[in-house]
C-alpha cells in the first residue's frame, strides 16, 4: 500500500534520514520505534509532504506522490495525525473534523466517527483548544479518518497522555483496523502500546532502520535496550 524507497531527508546540509527502504502492505500496522531525535517525526513529515525529501520516492497504492504537495498526497489516500495533535484551537470540534472532509467530499460527519469517539459527539460545539490532551488526540485521529485514508500516519499518539487514555487509543486503533481496509503506521516510544496495536515493529536509530521483526517474534528486552539511552 505504501512504498518508500531510498528516502533521504535533509535539514539544510545535514542529512537526517539516510536512504530508508520499506513497504507496508494493506491492512498491516507498522510501528516505528526509536528514541527522541532519531528521525521519527522527520520521516513522518516527509511522508505527508511537509518536509521535502532530497532523494528517493514515495508511492501510495501504486501512485507516485514524491513531488506532490501535502493536500495532493491526502487526496491520494494518506492521512496524518501529527505529534502534538495540532488541532485547530479556535474551531469547534465539529468544524475541526469537517476540515478533513474536503478531500473525501463527505457532506456530513459519518456516524461511525462519533461511534468511535463518543466524547467528541458530546463536545461537538466546544472549541478544539478547550479540550484535554487525550480528547484532542482523539479529535486529531477523527479529523484524519474523515479523509477516508488508505494509509494513516500517527506520530507519537501517546505523548503526554495518561495511561488509561493510552489504552483507549490502542483499542480505537484496533477497532479502526477491523472496520476499514487501512494501513496504519505509528511512531512510538511506549512499548506496551506498540505491542497491543502493531503487526510489525521497526526500530529507527540516527536515521537508519537497525532492527525489524514481527510482533509475535519480538524480543521485548532487545527492543527495550534499543529504546533506553
Amino acid at each position, binding site marked *: 500500500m505504501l512504498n518508500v524507497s531510498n528516502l533521504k531527508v535533509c535539514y539544510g546540509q545535514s542529512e537526517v534520514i539516510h536512504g530508508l527502504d520499506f513497504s507496508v502492505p494493506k491492512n498491516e500496522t507498522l510501528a516505528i520505534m526509536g528514541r527522541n531525535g532519531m528521525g521519527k517525526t522527520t520521516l513522518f513529515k516527509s511522508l505527508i509532504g*511537509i518536509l521535502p525529501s532530497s532523494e528517493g520516492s514515495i508511492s501510495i497504492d501504486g501512485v507516485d506522490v514524491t513531488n506532490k504537495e*501535502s*493536500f495532493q498526497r*491526502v*487526496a491520494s489516500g494518506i492521512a496524518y495525525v501529527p505529534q502534538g495533535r495540532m488541532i485547530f484551537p479556535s474551531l469547534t470540534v465539529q468544524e475541526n473534523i469537517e*476540515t478533513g472532509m474536503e*478531500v473525501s467530499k463527505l457532506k456530513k460527519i459519518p456516524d461511525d466517527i462519533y461511534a468511535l469517539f463518543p466524547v467528541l459527539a458530546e463536545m461537538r460545539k466546544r472549541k478544539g*483548544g478547550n479540550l484535554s490532551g487525550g480528547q484532542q488526540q482523539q479529535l486529531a485521529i477523527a479529523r484524519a479518518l474523515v*479523509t477516508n485514508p488508505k494509509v494513516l500516519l500517527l506520530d507519537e499518539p501517546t505523548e503526554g497522555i495518561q495511561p488509561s487514555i493510552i489504552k483507549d487509543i490502542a483499542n480505537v486503533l484496533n477497532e479502526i483496523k477491523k472496520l476499514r481496509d487501512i494501513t496504519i503506521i505509528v511512531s512510538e516510544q511506549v512499548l506496551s502500546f506498540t505491542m497491543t496495536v502493531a503487526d510489525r515493529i521497526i526500530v529507527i536509530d540516527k536515521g537508519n532502520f537497525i532492527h525489524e521483526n514481527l510482533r509475535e517474534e519480538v524480543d521485548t528486552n532487545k527492543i527495550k535496550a534499543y529504546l533506553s539511552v
Partner: protein
Amino acid sequence: MGGYSYDELGAIFAMQGFAGISLFSVLLLMALGLAIIFGQMGVINMAHGEFMAAGAYTTYLISSLTETYIPGFMPYYFVFSIVAAFLVAGVLGYLAEFILIRHLYKRPLDTLLATWGLSLIMQQSFRSIFGAREVSPTLPDWLMGSVQPTDMIDIPINGMFVLGLTVFTTLAVFYLMFKSSWGLRVRATTQNRVMSGAVGINTKKIDRYTFALGCGIAGMAGAAFTTIASTGPTTGTLYIVDTFMVVVFGGAASLFGTIASAFSIAQAQSILEFFISGSMAKVFTLLTLVIILMFKPEGLFASKVRR
C-alpha cells in the same frame, strides 16, 4: 457645547450620526477586506485603498458610459456598477496575488513594501487613465435628496443606501466565513497553514481567492464611496490609515470587533467634527484609541481560547 439648546443638540447628534453612518459603511467594508486578507495570509495590503479607488473609478466609468450611450438606463446603472466594482477589484486582486504577492508569503516585510509599490503603480495608472482631477459619477435621482422626519433633521438617502449595502455585504461575509465550507477552510488555514495542507486543504488556492474576495469588497466600498465624495487618484491613501485603525482596534481576526470599532471610530469622528475642527476630531479619536489599546492590546474583541 455652549449656545445650543437641547433640541438643537439632539438634531446635531442625529444628523452627524447619519453622516457618520456613511463613513462607517465605507470604513467597515474596507476593514472587512483588509481583515480577511491579513487574517488569512498575514499580508498587510498597503494597496487596499487603491482597490477601493479602482471600484470607485469603475462606478464612474459605468456612469459616464451609461450617460453617453444609454441615458434611459441611468436610474438603474448604480446597482450594476456595484457588482462591476466588486468584480473589477476582485480580478485585479486575483492578478496581484498571482503575479506578485504569492512569491513573498514567507517575507512579511517584503509584502508590505511590494503592496506599497503596487499602490503607487495603481495611483499613477489612475492618474494616467482618468486624469489628476477628481471625478464623480452622476448619481441616479433616487439616490439624491433626503428624508426629513422633523424640521431640523435631514437623513440623506444615499447614506441609507450605503448602509443597506454594507449590512448586506457584512452578512454575506459572515455567512461565507462561518457557515460555508469555504469559510471553514479559510479559518483552518488562518490558524495552522501547514496542518491545513496535511488534512487536504489546498491552501494556495484558498489564499488566492481570499485575496480576490478582500479586494472585491474594497471595490464595493469604492462604489459606496462615490455617493459621499468625489474620487481622485489618491483617494485610497486617505482611507487606508483609518482602515488600519479599525482593524487594529477591533482585534485582528474578529469580525464583530471590526464592526464595533468601525462604528465607534466613524461616529466619534463625525460627531466631534461638528464641534471642533476635523483634524482635532481625529486627534481626539486617535488619543482615545491609543489609551484603550494600552489596556486592551489585542483589540476590543479577542477570541477566548486556551493557547
